[in-house]
């Protein structure tokens, strides 16, 4: 079967957990070049380099705190007309269930806290989306600690685990809506081409999971039995063999 695509070979044994997982995650069609994903891909590459070495061995001192991290990009964004110095976009993130049992341990939203568009400088933040009335802030304690990302100084990673966890436990189609708000720093009289700015590159979601299938191996090795046997302690071998 040399030369046959490995996916075809794997399809012969779909019941093996690893094969099943690979078949579910691998794109069906082969792409010749990986798609250009801009900032999110670069962010994840940096996260990867911090967590594993060039050969893929996980670093012992990695601080990722999970065995799987999924970057979710917003499906769509709805930009609102300029209101004073504020520019607002509503971002929708689909929360698709995992094919295998992975437990959500952390969720963060990563966004650019400083945007430089043309000659405009914007300072930005993220809020939970609410249908009516003023948007509530993420709580400042526990989940709301907003700190500059160690990975990428231009990005801020904000913990929204509790917010996502509430949605995660719901049934049906789950969509996380966030409001990405930017304030224009240089006057408000000139309209900025906000619609031309893709939020796909300015904010994304990181979902951290841990594998709940991890088996604990309890292979107790007793090579001593041979040594004892060779030393003539035959009663021990008899007992063990029985």
């Amino acid at each position: 079967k040399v030369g046959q695509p490995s996916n075809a070979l794997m399809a012969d044994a779909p019941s093996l957990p690893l094969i099943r997982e690979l078949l579910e995650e691998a794109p069906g069609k082969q792409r010749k070049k990986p798609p250009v994903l801009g900032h999110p891909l670069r962010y994840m590459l940096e996260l990867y380099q911090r967590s594993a070495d060039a050969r893929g061995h996980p670093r012992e001192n990695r601080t990722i705190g999970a065995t799987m991290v999924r970057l979710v990009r917003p499906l769509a964004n709805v930009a609102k007309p300029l209101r004073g110095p504020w520019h607002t976009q509503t971002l929708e993130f689909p929360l698709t269930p995992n094919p295998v049992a992975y437990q959500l341990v952390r969720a963060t939203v990563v966004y650019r806290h400083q945007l430089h568009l043309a000659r405009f400088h914007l300072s930005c933040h993220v809020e939970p989306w609410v249908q009516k009335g003023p948007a509530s802030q993420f709580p400042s304690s526990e989940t709301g600690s907003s700190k500059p990302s160690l990975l990428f100084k231009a990005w801020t990673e904000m913990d929204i685990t509790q917010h996502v966890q509430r949605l995660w436990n719901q049934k049906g189609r789950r969509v996380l809506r966030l409001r990405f708000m930017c304030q224009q720093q240089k006057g408000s009289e000139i309209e900025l081409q906000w619609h031309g700015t893709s939020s796909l590159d300015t904010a994304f979601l990181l979902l951290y999971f841990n594998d709940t299938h991890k088996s604990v191996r309890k292979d107790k090795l007793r090579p001593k039995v041979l040594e004892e046997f060779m030393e003539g302690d035959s009663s021990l071998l008899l007992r063990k063999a029985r």
Partner: protein
Amino acid sequence: QVGSITSRVPGPFREHDEPKSNQCSLHPFQVSFQQLGWDHWIIAPHLYTPNYCKGVCPRVLHYGLNSPNHAIIQNLVNELVDQRVPQPSCVPYKYVPISILLIEANGSILYKEYEDMIAQSCTCR
């Protein structure tokens, strides 16, 4: 009877044992994800070092092989009772995981640690 068995069990490194180079051991081996046909969705790493175990299991399984009791007994059965029962096989003993960065079918980017992907040592069992 056990006494008579012990006298027939060959000691380690007898002349009829396999040369050391043929004995069960870990062999380094590297493959690229391109060769596996997965390079269209695996971004990093480019190379994968699964390694493999190969070689003949010695007739006396020494301590360093970490063989379980069963393998020791199976060796004895092969030697003394019935040669249709095969000798233990040379297989991986310890594994380490690999971290992979990949693009899912829906375009999401995934960092994932896969368990037991790299053989680190071998055993006879």
